[in-house]
């Protein structure tokens, strides 16, 4: 089937906003995800960016629930919003304090970067919706499957667990080894040498409050 791109966009608009198929949950969660993603990218305060990232990860967990992947949604909330974002907040607080009003958070190539990423997105969509002969396949069966093939009709956490323990056991073990190696590597990388004097961290006295001005006098 070869449709014109304009007709395709009309059809897409009707599918999205027509009265026939209201996918309100999907659009609400997508709005949260995209808005918080943009907030993560353009927020000046890094702590705000980290909180936006947590919101975005929770929204992605909602998308997983829409896709009947409950175990993955739980893992997403636990690992991303619980682990990685907390780790990022710790790293932000350990490094320089960027509260954001005067600090320049984006480099000079921002406009070029915006153009490049939008073109990258267009190329990805074109690769997905055109086959190797140049025909438009965005309205064929693979994109249009409106309902799930009735295989995992139930919440399939049990199936995921059984697959992890039976079919994909080797990958599971390798992932655990990779995690151990990453933990040891992170410890070694962030360890301070004994003979090296650390000048970035000021001496914290027990009574006095550590002023942030001390940090700027040192370098």
């Amino acid at each position, binding site marked *: 089937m070869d449709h014109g791109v304009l007709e395709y966009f009309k059809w897409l608009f009707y599918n999205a906003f027509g009265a026939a198929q209201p996918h309100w949950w999907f659009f609400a969660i997508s709005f949260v995800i*995209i808005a918080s993603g943009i907030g993560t990218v353009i927020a000046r305060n890094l702590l705000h960016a980290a909180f936006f990232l947590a919101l975005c990860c929770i929204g992605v967990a909602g998308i*997983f629930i829409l896709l009947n992947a409950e175990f993955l949604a739980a893992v997403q909330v636990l690992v991303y919003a619980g682990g990685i974002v907390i780790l990022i907040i710790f790293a932000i607080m350990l490094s320089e304090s960027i509260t954001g009003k005067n600090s320049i958070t*984006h480099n000079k190539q921002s406009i070029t970067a915006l153009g490049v990423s939008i073109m990258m997105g267009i190329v990805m969509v074109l690769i997905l*919706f055109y086959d190797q002969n140049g025909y438009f396949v965005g309205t064929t069966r693979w994109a249009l499957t409106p*309902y799930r093939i009735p295989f995992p009709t139930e919440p399939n956490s049990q199936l995921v667990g059984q697959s992890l323990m039976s079919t994909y056991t080797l990958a599971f073990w390798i992932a655990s080894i990779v995690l151990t190696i990453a933990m040891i590597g992170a410890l070694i*990388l962030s360890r301070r040498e004994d003979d090296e004097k650390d000048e970035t961290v000021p001496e914290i006295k027990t009574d006095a409050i550590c002023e942030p001005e001390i940090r700027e006098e040192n370098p």
Partner: protein
Amino acid sequence: MSLSDPPIFYYIYLGTILFVIGLFGCLSRRNAIAILMSLELMFNACNIVLVAFCQRHGVTYTLQAFSRAQDIESPVGQIYAIFVITIAAAEAAVGLALAIAAYRHYKSINMDNINLLKW
């Protein structure tokens, strides 16, 4: 299964938009930790598309790839997404340790200042 189950290209567009946002953040941020956060956005976009394709087409493709019945009933995309999350956790740990080490050495984590290998 309800009638309001959106077709798969919605998820593809959502993943593409999220990937584009993350790519823009990776290219335009100055702070190393902000670049890591944009990387997490891109991982999330990949996970969305993986799980969507698993839900819609996972059965047919695993039917072609495997022969045993217990292999047919394998949620391949979700397993892939779990391993992507695992690798993302390891990447975040190592990357943030690198950022802390770079901050300790350069007294800043702006990527403009870390230009030793830049020509």
